[in-house]
C-alpha cells in the first residue's frame, strides 16, 4: 500500500523486495520500480540552492 498526497493505492512490490514501510518509492504502472534515495534527493536540492548564491 502506498500513499501519495493523502491518496492510497495497492501497488506491486516485486521489483523492490527490500522496500520497508516509510520508504519513498517510484511508481509505474501499478508497481514500485525503485526506492527513492532520500540522501541523494537532499544532495541534489543542496546543489541547486548553492547555485542561487553563486548566480546572484
Amino acid at each position, binding site marked *: 500500500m502506498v500513499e*501519495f*498526497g493523502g491518496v492510497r493505492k495497492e501497488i*506491486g512490490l*516485486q*521489483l*523492490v*523486495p527490500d522496500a520497508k514501510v516509510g520508504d*519513498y518509492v*517510484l511508481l*509505474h*504502472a*501499478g*508497481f514500485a*520500480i*525503485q526506492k*527513492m*534515495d*532520500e540522501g*541523494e*534527493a537532499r*544532495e*541534489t*536540492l543542496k*546543489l*541547486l*540552492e548553492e*547555485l*542561487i548564491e*553563486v*548566480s*546572484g
Partner: protein
Amino acid sequence: MKYLDEFRDRRLAEALVRRIAQTSSGRLNLMEVCGTHTVTILRNGIKQLLADETNLISGPGCPVCVTSNQDLDKAIAMARHQGVILASFGDMMNVPGTSSNLQKERAGGRDIRMVYSAMDAVKSAKANPDKKVILLAIGFETTAPTIASSILEAHKQGLENFLVFCIHKLIPPAMKALLEMGEINIDGFICPGHVSAIIGSRPYQFIAQNYRIPCVVTGFEPLDVLQAIYMLILQRREGRCGVEIQYSRAVREEGNPTASKLLGEVFEVCDAQWRGLGMIPGSGLKLRGKYERFDALKNLELQIEDSREPQGCICGEILRGIKEPFECKLFGERCNPEDPVGPCMVSSEGTCAAYYKYNPRSE
C-alpha cells in the same frame, strides 16, 4: 508532496535559468528521448525559456508512438478472436490501426478492458477462466519488468488462460539507430529517467565513448530538466564527454538488479519493428522458450488484415527528430486528439499531442 514540490521551486528554477544563460557558449541541439520529458518541457514552458541556449528536439521515447501499424492490427485481430478479453493500458485505445482502433472495436462489442497494472490482467484471467485474457504488453524497460512479474505470477498460479502480446522495446538500441541514421546533429542527450531506474546509466556509455555525445540521465520535474540541461552545457563547455546522472535520487549506475533479473528470466532480446525507424536489431523483447505458452502470437490463430501506413502522416520523421509537428500538413487540422491519424497525436506522451495541447508557439 515530498520529493516532488521541492523540484518545482520557482527560485531555484530562475537561478538555473540564469546559470544556463551565463554558461552557454552557443545554441545546442539537445534531444530528450522520453515522451514524459517532452511533456515536462512543454507544460512548463522550458522550450521558450531556453530558446537562446538550446534547440530541444523530441525523440522516439513514446512506446505507443513507435508501435507499428502492423502490431496494432495484430492487437485488433486478437480482440476479434472468439472468447478473448484484451487488456490494455489506457493510451492504446485510440491509436489508429489500418482500418480500426481498439476504442471502435470495443464500441462494436469486443471485450476490451483498460488496466492500470499488469497484475490487473492476471486477476482478470483468474476471474474469467472460460475466457482468454491477452495483455497488450507495450512499453520500454520500465514497464517490461512489471509484465515479467505478472507472467511469473500467472505461472505460479498455474493459469492456463493468461496470454501476453509482447511488443516491448529497448531504448539504447534505438538511440544507436538514430545516431547511425545521421539525420540530425545531436550535441547532448537528456536520457530517460525511469527506464534508467531499471537499466542504470551504463547502457548509455557507448554514446559518450563512440559518438562523443554527452548524456545526462534526468528526472521528470521541471528543476530536474533544467539542471540536466545545465549539466550538458557544462560538459560541452569544459570539453568533457560522459554519462552523468542528474536523477540520482532514483537512478543508480547499476539500475535495479532485481528488475533486470526478472527481465532476463522471462524475456530475451530480439529484433523489432519501430514506426519511423524501421527494423532495429536487438531492440525488442520476446518471451523465452520456457514461457512460450504465455505468448499470444504463438498460441492463437489470427486473421490479421494487410497493414497500410496512413497517407500524409509524418510521425516517423517526428520520432526521428527531423521534423516538428507544425511541419506536418495534417497537424491540428485533419489530425487532432479527437480524430488522430497517427499515434503521435494519441498518446499523452506523443510529441504531436504535447505540441497540440501545450502549443509552444504561443506568440
